[in-house]
């Protein structure tokens, strides 16, 4: 495992993230009037965040260190299922986080 990004490198990373956020948010607001968003590209842009976030979440839940952990006793999996079930029932973010965190904690303590 590498060392965490720190110091000047961390400052550069954060400024880089701030810039990309600013550039995406202002892109079309600042662009010249001839710029048009192609339909196909618009569709791809629409689904990009969900796909990217899923690609972050799933390994985070199902990979422990370098090894797969598909065990039903995996606390992160249990927390994810609890949060997912809550989301099926309600859109409330706080409830989703609480149920996921409680299930995760209980699984870590008792399993």
């Amino acid at each position, binding site marked *: 495992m590498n060392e965490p990004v720190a110091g000047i490198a961390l400052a550069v990373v954060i400024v880089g993230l701030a810039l990309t956020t600013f550039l995406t948010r202002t892109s079309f607001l600042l662009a010249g009037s001839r710029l048009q968003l192609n339909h196909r590209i*618009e569709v791809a842009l629409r689904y990009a965040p969900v796909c*990217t*976030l899923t690609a972050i979440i799933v390994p985070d839940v199902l990979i422990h260190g370098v090894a797969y952990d598909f065990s039903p006793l995996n606390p992160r999996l249990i927390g994810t299922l609890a949060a997912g079930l809550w989301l099926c029932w309600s859109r409330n973010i706080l409830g989703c986080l609480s149920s996921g965190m409680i299930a995760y904690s209980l699984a870590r303590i008792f399993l």
Partner: protein
Amino acid sequence: MTGIEPARREVFLQGRRAILHSLPGAATWGLVSGVAMVKGGLTVPWAIFMSLTVYAGSAQLAALPLIATGMPLWVIVGTGFITNLRFVIYSAALRPYFVDEPLRKRAALGFFMTDFTFTLFMRAAQEGWLPGRHRDAWFAGVCSNNWITWQVSAVTGIVAASYVPTDWGLEFTGTLALIALVGPALQARPALMGAIAAAVVALLAHGLPYRLGLFVAALAGIVVATLADDWRPRESPVDSGSTS
């Protein structure tokens, strides 16, 4: 400039009121982002710096595990970029309403635009209760309330989390917050199929260096979702009768 026109001021205050009902959501999201930043390994000053400069919960949460594992700059910023791509669509949608405003004002409105404030603006526009004049002031009202709420709760989360022992596992709230964000989006069939593809590829490609697996997985998901979107039955009467 010698003071603000009363009508403009009134529209600004209308905007501040219009966002009130979604502030609890913004506060929760900010709080969790704050907690996750500190539990994800950032010190309090860096976390506050990130919150103030980036002001994008999902991109920040996505970047955290990459920062913690010492990934190169381009991997972290690249991940932030694709997480932010939705904003390109938002800014394209907002463009017609602000096209006559000066450049500096458009840049400012873009900087403060988020999922919450964009959604509210478009709803107001579609339902016809967007003010006819001083829309920039209205949106500034909406965005300022959202910004203050998010930042105050994020800083609260950052400071509070620094007193919570690491073995409580609070860093998992970052993952849960992303789940809360992704979950509702999966109701759309193409998004669900894209997410499944992204998940499978992310698991298979996890061993690739520099988290390249993340990009490969995101790309696979986007391709599948885009193809699925093409095949989705259209609701418009013109298409509903066709056999394709």
